[in-house]
């Protein structure tokens, strides 16, 4: 029977090829979308957990708005007041308070934005993965720079190399390259905090007396359960507000969830459309092969055998389509991700695609069920043919 099915499919290569392509594309879209959402969530969680911090103290104003302003090459007008760091460090619940100065440096010529982060020793406590892949793991001079793994690959630098930043007219000395961490930090240029304050302060038109500015303070608590009281106390620091990471993650995941529902619904539309296509193809095959099927019936094939033949044909069609779709998803996924990465807000640094066999299996199962469902009516039509018709039509 299997051979028969294969031969039937091979008889109309163009038609079955088109149907197959439809199934494959629908399957690929479904798998990619599922993998994408899952990957985003995992990356976000990893990023937040690896940070080992429970909250951030950021300047007043909208955190999203600040990010947007940075992207447009505008200055970071918001910064934390100078005394905020002391206030945080004096809080009884705070174990580690790491001052950070983040600045984005858009590079129009290369169509990307470099992230520069100035930090001091306390940052090592909140970045437990911090290990030098090559070179030294900490700055020895004020013009040392330590590169994240991706940043080093992009700039093609090794420890000991010189590194010139044309936008900032400053030459740096690459002290070390970090091991890959799987977070956004992989593409960051790390420099000493004082250097960053000196470098990004005056150029961004800051008033004198704001030289010791910070853009954020990452806070780890002695006891994670103290988060509520600590947040309430720190919220009182003038000019600053506390964002807990659970809040932040909740906001992102809400947004993601909304988009994901929409996309999954659209993918479902694609699957339905390709199911209709299978239905049509099989129905056409039944009508075209009426004579053949009738003869089969006349020489002794039972109704259920005919029914089975058609169902197996559909199954095989969807199965091949599924395999092609899965291959398509694995092959094109990373490329799609690179494309989509430019459009997705707050994309974590790590790969967003988590293509998993479980997802592939789940989608495959779904499309197979849909395929069999689409085959039911044509198969029933075929099984209903009367063997006596054979005499008439020949």
């Amino acid at each position, binding site marked *: 029977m299997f051979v028969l099915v294969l031969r039937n499919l091979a008889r109309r290569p163009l038609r079955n090829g088109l149907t197959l392509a439809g199934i494959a594309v629908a399957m690929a879209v479904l798998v990619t979308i599922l993998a994408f959402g899952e990957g985003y969530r995992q990356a976000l969680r990893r990023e937040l957990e690896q940070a080992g911090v429970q909250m951030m103290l950021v300047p007043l104003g909208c955190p999203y708005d600040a990010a947007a302003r940075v992207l447009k090459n505008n200055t970071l007008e918001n910064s934390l007041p100078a005394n905020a760091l002391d206030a945080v460090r004096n809080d009884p619940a705070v174990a580690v308070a790491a001052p950070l100065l983040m600045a984005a440096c858009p590079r129009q010529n290369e169509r990307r934005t470099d992230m520069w982060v100035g930090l001091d020793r306390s940052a090592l406590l909140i970045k437990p993965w911090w290990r030098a892949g090559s070179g030294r793991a900490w700055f020895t001079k004020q013009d040392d720079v330590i590169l994240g793994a991706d940043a080093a690959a992009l700039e093609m630098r090794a420890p000991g190399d010189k590194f010139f930043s044309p936008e900032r007219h400053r030459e740096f000395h690459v002290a070390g390259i970090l091991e890959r961490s799987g977070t956004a930090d992989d593409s960051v240029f790390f420099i000493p905090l004082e250097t960053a304050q000196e470098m990004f302060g005056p150029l961004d038109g800051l008033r004198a007396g704001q030289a010791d500015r910070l853009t954020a303070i990452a806070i780890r608590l002695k006891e994670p359960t103290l988060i509520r009281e600590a947040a309430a106390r720190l919220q009182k620091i003038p000019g600053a507000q506390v964002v807990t990471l659970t809040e932040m993650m909740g*906001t992102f995941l809400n947004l993601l969830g909304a*988009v994901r529902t929409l996309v999954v619904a659209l993918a479902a539309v694609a699957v339905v459309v390709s199911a209709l296509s299978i239905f049509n193809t099989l129905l056409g095959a039944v009508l075209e092969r009426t004579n053949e099927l009738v003869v089969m019936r006349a020489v002794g094939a039972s109704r259920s055998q005919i029914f089975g033949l058609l169902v197996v044909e559909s199954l095989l069609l969807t199965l091949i389509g599924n395999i092609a779709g899965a291959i398509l998803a694995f092959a094109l996924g990373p490329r799609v991700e690179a494309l989509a990465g430019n459009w997705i807000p707050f994309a974590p640094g790590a790969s967003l695609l988590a293509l998993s066999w479980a997802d592939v299996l789940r989608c495959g199962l779904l499309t197979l069920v849909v395929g069999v469902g689409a085959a039911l009516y044509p198969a029933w039509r075929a099984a209903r043919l009367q063997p006596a018709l054979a005499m008439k039509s020949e």
Partner: protein
Amino acid sequence: MTWLALSSNEWRRRPLRQGVTTAGVAIAVAAMFSLLTFHDGYRDGVRNEIERLGAHVLVVPKGCPYDAASIALHGANWPCYLKSNYLQEVAGTTGVASAAPAFMAALAAADGAPVVFVGIDERMLALRPGWKFDGAFPRRPGEVLAGAEAARLRHWRVGDQVALPELSATGTISGILNATHGADDSFLYTRLQDAQQWFQHRGELTHILVRLKDANLLEPTVAALRGCDAGMDMNVVPLAHLFRTIQRLANSTRLLLGSVAMIALLLAATGVSNAVLMSVTARTREIGVLRAVGASRGHVFGLIWLETMQICVAGGIIGVLLAFAGSHGVESWLRSGLPFAPSDALIRWDWLTAGLCLGGAALLGSFAALLPASRAAGLAPLEAMREGAKT
């Protein structure tokens, strides 16, 4: 017999196949139409909602300004409060035309829908020139100005003495707002002092609505507000920025959603191509005869092309109608999952979008027709008749 009549023969001969193919196109077009109108509807909805607020700048307590703005627009309980004396500073800042204080609190009612109380004073009237109401603005203790929907639900009329829902207090309905088609319709407006007293937050506000003298001076005024003495303890949210950011978020999803919808359309086109190809194969003999009696290759190509177009255009029309008919259900489903869902209709009829979808379907049909039509046109008359006779 005209070509049009000839090309529509297939509908009679294979109604099921044609129907299924058309349904495929219709579903894909419906998805596209919903998506396109939804994007416009969402943008306009958010803009209307922000405009209805009547303010240029929102002053809110510390915390995420987006949550705060969403609460101010839709009504809910606030996590933090502002001190009442910030109001004087805000009102005294250069560039500020009027600053209206508000104290908002929400109580969960037995039927699930929250009851939102908003304490305001007469300064609010300067921000809402569109407000019309029967009766009077609440000026005496216990007086309530009810939103149109809130009053209708509870059968309140002006002058009624009522027990305020979920509060152990009674009030007088001093006025009922005419419908504004926004969140205002379900709010209960009271005197500022009453709201502060009922919810035990004397001397505190939840937000301050600020209207500027000149909307073009937004940036300097915001900078001035942030720089005033209280500026370190409150969040100043320019609503134009808020709108831009929401818009940017919506736009960033647009490409992703659009491409998935495009894929669905392409799949539908493949299905159309396939179905027409099948009908061409089944009619090999017929086409041979047509050619033999004098129809040119161009005629045959045109015939098949016309057939394909019929499917696609019919699918397009049905799809657009389907999307419109189902918009209510789709909308309530979307609303449940969307952050910042405005209360206006999200999916609306739009001739331009409908035309765009129809045009898109027709264009797609032309492409889908290429393969089967050229195959049909390529048949040699005699061989086609012979081959047709064989099967």
